[in-house]
């Protein structure tokens, strides 16, 4: 019999394929609980509607996206994944206009499931490396402008 951990790993994979390969948000939405909470170092997003709006925002930034799951560990209701994200920067990202460059960055992700749906997501990603690929750089505050 398939364990819960194995089932959840498969759902995680399907979920990301739906978003980043099929670009089918309706399909992805099936895997999200109404009470989902998304936690990144900078933001916390509560509820399915806001979560989907966030994902849609990222989808508008990138074309031709691929997710490669390099490693995965699951235990009961949690799935950890080490991921390489790749996409062409084809839409505005905040104040940064499209560079049409292929961007690659690493991320680590933890999903928690309840009844086959994602209830919590924690993400850390190489935000600095990502922003540098978009042409940004870090400077001391007093030296800027």
């Amino acid at each position, binding site marked *: 019999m398939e364990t819960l951990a194995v089932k959840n790993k498969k759902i995680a994979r399907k979920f990301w394929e739906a978003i980043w390969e099929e670009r089918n948000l309706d399909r992805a939405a099936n895997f999200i609980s109404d009470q989902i909470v998304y936690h990144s170092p900078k933001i916390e997003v509560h509820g399915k509607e806001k979560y989907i709006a966030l994902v849609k925002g990222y989808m508008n930034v990138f074309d031709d996206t691929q997710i490669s799951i390099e490693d995965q560990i699951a235990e009961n209701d949690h799935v950890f994944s080490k991921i390489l994200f790749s996409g062409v920067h084809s839409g505005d990202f905040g104040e940064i206009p499209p560079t049409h460059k292929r961007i690659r960055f*690493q991320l680590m992700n*933890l999903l928690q499931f309840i009844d086959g749906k994602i209830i919590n997501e*924690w993400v*850390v990603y190489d935000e*600095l490396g990502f922003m540098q690929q978009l*042409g940004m750089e870090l400077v001391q505050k007093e030296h800027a402008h």
Partner: protein
Amino acid sequence: METQAEKNKLLVKKAYEGIWIKRDIDQFASLIAEDITYQLPGIVIQGKANYLEAIRNYWNTFEEAQMTIEHQMATEDKVYTRFTFRGKQTGPFRDVPATRKIIRFEGMDLIQITDGKITKEWEIFDELGLMQQLGLELVHKEHAH
């Protein structure tokens, strides 16, 4: 009986404790393999001697450090950890001289263990968030001087 996964979790806890609580390089060194590889986005550190030097540099950068394990899962040969790090920046970090600021950042870590020793470590932490706490900001390259 303790499973291999549980043993691996304990080993990682002991490693963090060796680094951040006891600051005992010998205890820590006994847990890592000669050919260890430590990977952060954009950085690869190879071999025990280089790895230990990286740890000593972290010690020189942060005092009053606290490494909190928020969540952990393990398999036969891998341990994933989500953590929060707190410390006071009392030494240089990258190009930033000591600010004496208390900083806090989140990260995730994946460690591979072979024959009771750490052979590989992949880590992503909120480096951008840390640099912002140290007084840096992101600007467009053409705007910076």
